[in-house]
């Protein structure tokens, strides 16, 4: 079972066993009163460590002036501090064996750690710190990650994500995977293993900065570790531009380094890696030059630009498609408009007693009117308004208009006709849609009118100068109640005129409010001297905008008692 790892509950007992001999040497090195011979004796106690120490100390990377061949010589030449750091590097490298985390390629971790170490070492001059100390801090700073993988080997499958993440992303991912971070675990481990203070601080606080009470040198070392993290990330992360930019900013902010100097140091890191790996006895892959990394970053930038262009191109395509679709839709609407217009008789047709006018607010209308001569010479007429607007209203209008024309030729009683239309429309009506309609029959020979209204606005019976009568609806609109009862009004036109209209006329907004029925009566009176077709146009013009547009569908039918001159 995996150990439970959280920042608060990583217990020393969970941690891998400390390299006791190495820790003893490290502690002895930190003792200012220790005699160099005693120190040499302690070192020599661990012959394997001594052999490795001498190999590393004599390597070209650490570049001692003269070769050292014994523990006592190493103590004298290196000094206790450098000795301590080398012992730490070697012992930590070996603290977790390659097979202690199943399925994990530990070399990939150490290559990354080594790059941090080399980066930190390259900053020693800028930070005015000891180069070996910087190197050690860099090598150890992410050791907590290795410990977390050791404690929870089941998370090894996420190593690839962790390995290619930026330092910030890596910490976020660690919180998801381990509920803690490498710096928290590193701090616990360094404290538990009693590692030197400056290295403990560097391990625990290279992300969030050490406590303010820390020594200035220790704070500087934490800054070096923070910079080294992003410098190493330049060679590790997918998005190199981000890491290069962050490294440049951090080095400038912390050490006043120019971008060029940061790039120079980054190049040095790449060049020193093989030598450092050889010194530390680590296996590393082929190292990319900084120039190659920079080229990769620029290529990525170019690719991103390219995808932006592609995005732009796709957008253009989509817009073109939308325009094409809109054109098709416009064409369809135009066809619908033509079909709808064909359902209406002409404004002033062959019948001398009736004129009609229909103006639409949109391409198609929910209003309609119709009139035709019956076999007995009388004239059937109607005007209707479908609730709502747009295509659904237009389709219901087409249905109602067809029913009127078809059934009206056989049923000459307006009330009976409306009753039948009501049932037909009710059967198929959806969304509460309804039709208000006035249907009538006019006998030009006698002047008699028979009229029935289903929920429509009052029909006005006008004389030359005044209103004679108005006929409001006595039944609700068509399509609401299948059992609706419709009745007829029968009266004589007396040489006057009937005005049938939709709400688009009386509810039209004028400068001083809506036209209303009274406004319409005044308007009719004002234009009563005009022949009916011109009168209809003049009435509509009173509410039309300058460009002829109307706010709502507007329909008007005039039935004239007196015969129109010049018609028929």
């Amino acid at each position: 079972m995996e150990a439970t790892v959280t920042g608060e509950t990583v217990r020393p007992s969970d941690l891998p066993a400390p390299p006791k001999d190495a820790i003893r040497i490290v502690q002895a090195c930190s003792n200012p009163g220790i005699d160099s011979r005693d120190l040499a004796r302690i070192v020599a106690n661990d012959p394997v460590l001594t052999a490795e120490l001498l190999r590393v100390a004599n390597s070209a990377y650490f570049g001692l002036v003269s070769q050292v061949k014994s523990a006592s010589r190493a103590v004298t030449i290196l000094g206790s501090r450098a000795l301590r750091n080398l012992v730490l590097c070697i012992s930590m490298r070996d603290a977790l064996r390659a097979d202690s985390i199943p399925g994990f390629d530990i070399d990939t971790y150490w290559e990354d750690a080594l790059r941090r170490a080399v980066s930190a070492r390259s900053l020693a001059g800028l930070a005015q710190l000891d180069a070996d100390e910087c190197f050690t801090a860099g090598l150890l700073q992410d050791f907590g990650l290795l410990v977390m993988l050791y404690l929870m080997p089941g998370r090894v499958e996420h190593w690839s994500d962790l390995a290619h993440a930026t330092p910030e992303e890596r910490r976020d991912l660690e919180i998801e995977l381990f509920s803690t971070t490498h710096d928290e675990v590193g701090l616990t481990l360094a404290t538990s293993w009693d590692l030197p203070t400056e290295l403990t601080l560097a391990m625990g606080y290279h992300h969030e900065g050490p406590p303010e009470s820390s020594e200035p040198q220790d704070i500087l070392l934490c800054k070096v570790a923070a910079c080294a993290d992003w410098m190493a990330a330049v060679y590790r992360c997918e998005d190199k531009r981000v890491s290069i930019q962050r490294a440049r900013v951090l080095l400038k902010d912390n050490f006043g380094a120019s971008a060029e100097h940061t790039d120079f140091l980054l190049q040095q890191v790449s060049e020193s890696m093989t030598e450092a790996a050889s010194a530390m006895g680590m296996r590393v892959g082929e190292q990319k030059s900084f120039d190659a990394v920079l080229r990769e970053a620029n290529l990525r930038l170019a690719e991103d630009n390219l995808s932006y262009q592609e995005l732009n191109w796709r957008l253009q395509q989509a817009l073109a498609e939308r325009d094409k679709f809109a054109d098709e839709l416009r064409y369809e609407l135009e066809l619908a408009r033509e079909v709808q217009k064909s359902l209406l008789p002409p404004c002033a047709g062959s019948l001398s007693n009736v004129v009609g006018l229909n103006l639409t607010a949109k391409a198609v209308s929910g209003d309609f009117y119709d009139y035709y001569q019956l076999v007995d010479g009388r004239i059937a007429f109607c005007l209707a308004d479908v609730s709502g607007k747009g295509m659904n209203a237009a389709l219901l209008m087409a249905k109602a208009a067809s029913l009127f024309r078809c059934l009206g030729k056989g049923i000459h009683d307006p009330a009976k006709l409306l009753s039948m239309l009501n049932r037909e429309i009710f059967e198929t009506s959806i969304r509460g849609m309804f039709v208000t309609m006035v249907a009538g029959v006019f006998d030009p020979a006698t002047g008699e009118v028979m009229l029935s209204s289903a929920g429509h606005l009052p029909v006005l019976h006008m004389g030359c100068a005044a209103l004679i009568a108005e006929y409001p609806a006595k039944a609700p609109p068509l399509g609401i109640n299948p059992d609706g009862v419709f009745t007829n009004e029968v009266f004589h036109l007396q040489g006057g005129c009937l005005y049938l209209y939709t709400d688009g006329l009386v509810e039209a907004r004028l400068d001083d409010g809506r036209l209303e029925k009274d406004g319409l009566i005044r308007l009719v009176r004002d234009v009563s001297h005009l022949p009916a077709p011109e009168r209809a146009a003049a009435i509509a013009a009173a509410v039309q905008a300058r460009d002829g547009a109307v706010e709502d569908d507007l329909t008007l039918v005039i039935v004239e008692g007196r015969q129109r001159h010049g018609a028929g």
Partner: protein
Amino acid sequence: MAFPVEDKHGFSVITLKGEVDLKNSPDARKVILNNLKKRRHVLVDLSGVEYIDSSGVASLVEGLQYARSNDLGFSLVGVSEAAMNVLRLARLDQVFRIYASLEDGLHGGG
């Protein structure tokens, strides 16, 4: 515009206000039908309606038809003069159950 709904004595009281026309009648329709679909009796308060067009009336008609076929209460209450004129002209005052006030509607049982 969202039309407010209040729960009063087991009724959903929906308040339509201002101009109810093609622009907001789909909202009115939605709120009315949603409450009926939750099997609530509905009272529509029209006291604040300044103008209602045929699309607004159609929303009420659809609510009424849905309520009738699902045995639910659907009434109009406190109908403003502007709305009443429209309903009266279209003889829809014969179709809807209309109460003078919300209190009457609540007592009338929707």
